[in-house]
């Protein structure tokens, strides 16, 4: 809700040039909001981690709806695929008049084989392919009004709660992909660890990430100003978030909560004393969703584009006739 500042012709308290009357520049926020609500926006999230870490459950919990491909009619005990596959599922969800086209990219088979060498390659290829698609559209002579954005805005990397340290595969993956996509590491199935174990594990993981030079989102180098920096510092201190996912509801103290019922108590997903799911959700959706998209577009995509245009003497703009064929 926007409050109109009426200035009665004399000096305004914010400095700058004084306004002699109300103009209405501040209504631009309202105009932007209206437009965004009409067009809606895209958000593409990728989940990576070996099977059994609760990826699908967590995504369902995050978006409070059955959006994972497990629920889209896939059998629960599917066989582990022999190579890493990339499967994406799209849903349109609406809240408060705002439409979001959420695309979830799953990577079954990652880290499940006996020999996991190069299992990050199909994922890297997929991410680059999305950049390539966008680049081709951008470079066209006659461009579409709104280029469909299939680029991966955020990659949630699930760390296994061993309680000891990161695995070799985790470090390899994050090292290789932190420069082409926003990686948010999270500790899966956090109800395996007691509070002390969780703190110790987090510290150790953070140290290892630092030592390996892995820049996870929010990256320090992209903090715009001091305010951003202090906000992001707080978040970086608390990462990686230790989360628990659930899509079942139970009655606790008269309230209905999302949780997991064990013989010794109910793990409440949204209780900050139990796990850090609420923090992750707020961070991911309520405060940094737009920033994730911006960093992807302004930084990761631009890096890719610069690299592509510098090699092979650059891309040639495609004529409209070619476009018709390539868009099939």
């Amino acid at each position, binding site marked *: 809700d926007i409050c109109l500042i009426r200035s009665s012709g004399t000096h305004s308290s914010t400095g700058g040039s004084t306004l002699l009357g109300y103009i209405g520049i501040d209504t631009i926020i309202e105009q932007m909001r209206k437009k965004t609500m009409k067009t809606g926006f895209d958000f593409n999230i990728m989940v990576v981690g070996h099977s059994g870490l609760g990826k699908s459950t967590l995504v369902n919990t995050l978006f409070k709806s059955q959006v994972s491909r497990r629920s889209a009619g896939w059998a629960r005990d599917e066989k*582990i695929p022999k190579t890493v596959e990339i499967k994406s599922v799209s849903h349109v969800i609406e809240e408060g008049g705002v439409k979001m086209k959420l695309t979830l990219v799953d990577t079954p088979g990652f880290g499940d084989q*006996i020999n996991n060498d190069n299992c990050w390659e199909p994922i890297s290829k997929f991410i680059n392919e999305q950049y390539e698609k966008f680049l081709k559209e951008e470079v066209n002579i006659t461009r579409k009004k709104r280029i469909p954005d299939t680029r991966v805005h955020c990659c949630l990397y699930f760390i296994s709660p061993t309680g000891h340290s990161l695995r070799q595969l985790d470090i390899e993956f994050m090292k290789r992909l932190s420069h082409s996509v926003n990686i948010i590491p999270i500790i899966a199935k956090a109800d395996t660890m007691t509070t002390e174990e969780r703190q110790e594990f987090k510290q150790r993981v953070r140290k290892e990430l630092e030592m390996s030079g892995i820049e996870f989102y929010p990256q320090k180098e992209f903090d715009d100003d001091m305010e951003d920096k202090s906000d992001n510092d707080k978040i970086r201190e608390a990462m990686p978030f230790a989360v628990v996912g659930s899509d079942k509801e139970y009655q606790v103290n008269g309230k209905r909560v999302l949780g997991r019922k064990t013989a010794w108590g109910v793990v409440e997903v949204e209780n900050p004393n139990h796990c850090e799911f609420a923090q992750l959700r707020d961070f991911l959706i309520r405060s940094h969703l737009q920033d994730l998209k911006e960093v992807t577009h302004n930084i990761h995509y631009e890096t890719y584009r610069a690299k592509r245009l510098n090699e092979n003497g650059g891309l040639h703009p495609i004529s409209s006739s070619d476009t018709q064929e390539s868009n099939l």
Partner: protein
Amino acid sequence: ALIQCKTSTLNWQQRNLEGYVGFANLPNQVYRKSVKRGFEFTLMVVGESGLGKSTLINSLFLTDLYSKDYPGPSQRIKKTVQVEQSKVLVKEGGVQLTLTIVDTPGFGDAVDNSNCWQPVINYIDSKCEDFLNAESRVNRRSMPDNRVHCCLYFIAPSGHGLKPLDIEFMKRLHDKVNVIPLIAKADTLTPEECQLFKKQIMKEIQEHKIKIYEFPDTEDDEDNKLIRKIKEKMPLAVVGSNVVIEVNGKKVRGRQYPWGVAEVENGEHCDFTVLRNMLIRTHMQDLKDVTNNVHYENYRSKKLAAVTCNGVDASKTKGQLTKSPLAQMEEERRDHVMKMKKMEAEMEQVFEMKVKEKKQKLKDSEAELERRHEQMKRNLEAQYKELEEKRRVFEEEKVNWEAQQRILEQQKLDASKTMEKNKKKGKIF
């Protein structure tokens, strides 16, 4: 009680005794002897790091096998799979147990885990080999039994099913050692998830024909009921902890979460007590027996069959496995004798050839010598002739010279004669 006696000697018959004989005391004697000897048990734990293996061992045996001063292998980062053993002597009620825990740090932790089971297989085989060698020795007084009696395989609580690594490992080890699969960190799963997971695992185990350790049926009905209950719970879902927490005034071992305490020894929370009872209180001896009678015998027959049929085709090996060792030894002896004969013949041949060669050589050198001798003789004769020639010349010269001398002398004489004559003449004048 009457003694029923029949004249046939081959039938074993149940006889009733008239009085107390006393061999009912036999089990006590066996017991006392065993207690004096002490027991040995080797337990192997396999699984990825971070699955709570060390904690579970500490909980099972109520000791701190791995503590802050001697951290467990999982606290140290390993690049390749190692096999480490730790021995602990535990005493309880006069019975002493030498417990060996074999740990496999680094298993399944690398990016490429192909053949990470090989060090484990090598270890198990080497222990069986040690025992085989000890058994075959002449002096068998002390035979320590270091064979692996039981292998606890830890499955990560994913909730879905077995991983390819789990299946590969169990397939390769199920005929070498007793494999007992466990679901680790079972407090991650809710009861429903646990049930589904167990069913899925058992299904996959049957699909891949993996032979996990089977509990033997007993004659006692009560025991059978218990055993059937245990079988239904396989694979056992365990939680380990050595931390004592107070719950409702009671001190229990468990894990303290913000939402409650997961009690390790509570049957409704996890299957830890089932595992402990089964492993230590009821089936320890059976595990040792199965290791000795089945796994070790498999190893032994494979090993010995390979040794006695060295150099023979693999297809023939299969048939020869059914012969008795004595027949095999006879055959071996015959083979050996034939081989010896052949070797002898060969040697003779070689010998003859060598002799011929030597003779030829000697002949050659003899001819050479003769030739040289001839040459030398000729040289000598030539020299002799030369010398003779010289001599002749010399003689001739000598004769000439002598002749000349004589002439000279004659002349001299003549000269002196005339002088004399002249003198005489002169004087006379």
